[in-house]
């Protein structure tokens, strides 16, 4: 049977790797190429690399740098940040990305996602779902304050036949207090597509606790690998 996928997440600000807390207070954590090399040597299952400032700063992702990151990896790699056109997707797949992670464009223009899935195949189109909690409802985190229910967004993307959802809890991001287990139960009821949970892992038992809720998606994390002594191998051993 399939094993639980463990995925380190690398967030990049255009200059160096950073780690945020609740999507603010970005703290520099190193050089992306070196970090990718370490993750590769630790035999991780997949890698996610996101330029979290590309869309906000209206620039394209740095392709030569991303290529160097991908060249370090002998496992599937997902790349996100500032993807607006077919050309952007094509460029990333061309340098060896296996999946692209899209958020803003999916919110603005679901039709783009329908076409991207038809053209590139659903397996390589992942959707980033950054979630906040407001008045006891799960909403999509956005720079403007437009209210979009998480459920509505995921249902719409599910109909577009996307390959995967990367669901990140903004409240838990960088806090290292554990995953939002109720969030992932909710998402599992909305879609049958593969899910990647991100946000909150601080110790290996946090992963185990989420798996024990019958969650059968992938487990992603960032802070635990940057700031603690735990490696992906130790986390995996703990789960098994």
């Amino acid at each position, binding site marked *: *049977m*399939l*094993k639980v*996928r463990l995925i380190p997440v690398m967030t990049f600000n255009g200059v160096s790797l950073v780690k945020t807390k609740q999507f603010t207070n970005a703290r520099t954590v190193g050089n992306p190429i070196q970090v990718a090399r370490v993750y*590769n040597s630790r*035999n*991780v*299952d997949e890698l996610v690399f996101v330029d979290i400032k590309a869309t906000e700063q209206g620039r394209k992702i740095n392709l030569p740098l991303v290529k160097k990151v*991908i*060249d370090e990896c*002998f*496992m*599937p790699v997902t790349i996100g940040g500032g993807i607006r056109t077919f050309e952007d997707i094509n460029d990333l*797949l*061309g*340098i*060896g*990305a*296996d999946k692209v992670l899209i958020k803003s464009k999916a919110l603005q223009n679901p039709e783009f996602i329908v076409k991207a899935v038809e053209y590139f*195949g659903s*397996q*390589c189109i992942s959707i980033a779902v950054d979630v906040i909690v407001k008045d006891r409802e799960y909403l999509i985190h956005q720079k403007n304050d437009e209210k979009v229910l998480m459920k509505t967004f995921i249902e719409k993307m599910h109909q577009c036949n996307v*390959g*995967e959802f990367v669901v990140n809890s903004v409240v838990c991001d960088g806090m290292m207090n554990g995953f939002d287990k109720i969030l992932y139960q909710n998402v599992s009821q909305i879609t*049958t*597509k*593969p899910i990647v949970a991100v946000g909150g892992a601080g110790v290996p038992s946090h992963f185990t606790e989420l798996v024990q809720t019958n969650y059968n998606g*992938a487990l992603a994390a960032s802070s635990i690998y940057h700031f603690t002594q735990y490696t992906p191998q130790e986390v995996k051993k703990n789960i098994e």
Partner: protein
Amino acid sequence: MIVVIDYGMGNLASVQKVIKSLKKEVKITCDKKEIQKASLIVLPGVGSFEQGMKNLNDLGLVDLLYQEVIQNKKPFLGICLGMQLIMEKGSEPNECNGLGWIKGRVVPIVNSRLPVPHLGWNNTYKHKEENQGDTLLNNFYFIHSFHVLPEEAVECTYVDYEFRMVASIEKENIFATQFHPEKSQNAGLLLLKNYIESYA
């Protein structure tokens, strides 16, 4: 020289990267002369069966590949879609003919309880029971919604996803995998190293 066939179906860069890391000469091409000169032909691919066959036909490679692989017995490595295309018939999205080097069909994964595609890391095994040995060496990355049903005696390994599916096929000079060895970390690199070093 190893040739990776460029027929517009997905991620060729990662296959090239692995071969390069083994210090072997590799070319991504659809040029017939280069393919004829190759010591090993690699057919990777992600996407639909019908589109894959259409692209091979449009490039005029179907007869050439038959000549090289079946008549001249040149070593051939198929990966993912590249494995499915060597069967007689596919059904993604419509029924259509494949390269037909191995008798059998490609059919959708039908699984009521588990998600499709079969996506992630899974163990392969040779015989009826799951290999209890070194699991690190047969733990591979899969991503596919269709699987092959060979209808002739070929050497296979298997993978379990509620039911048993074929993970790899070996027949004379043909070796093909449903999983992606080029993305399967140490296990995949070792498999490719052993295979490629024995041929190229």
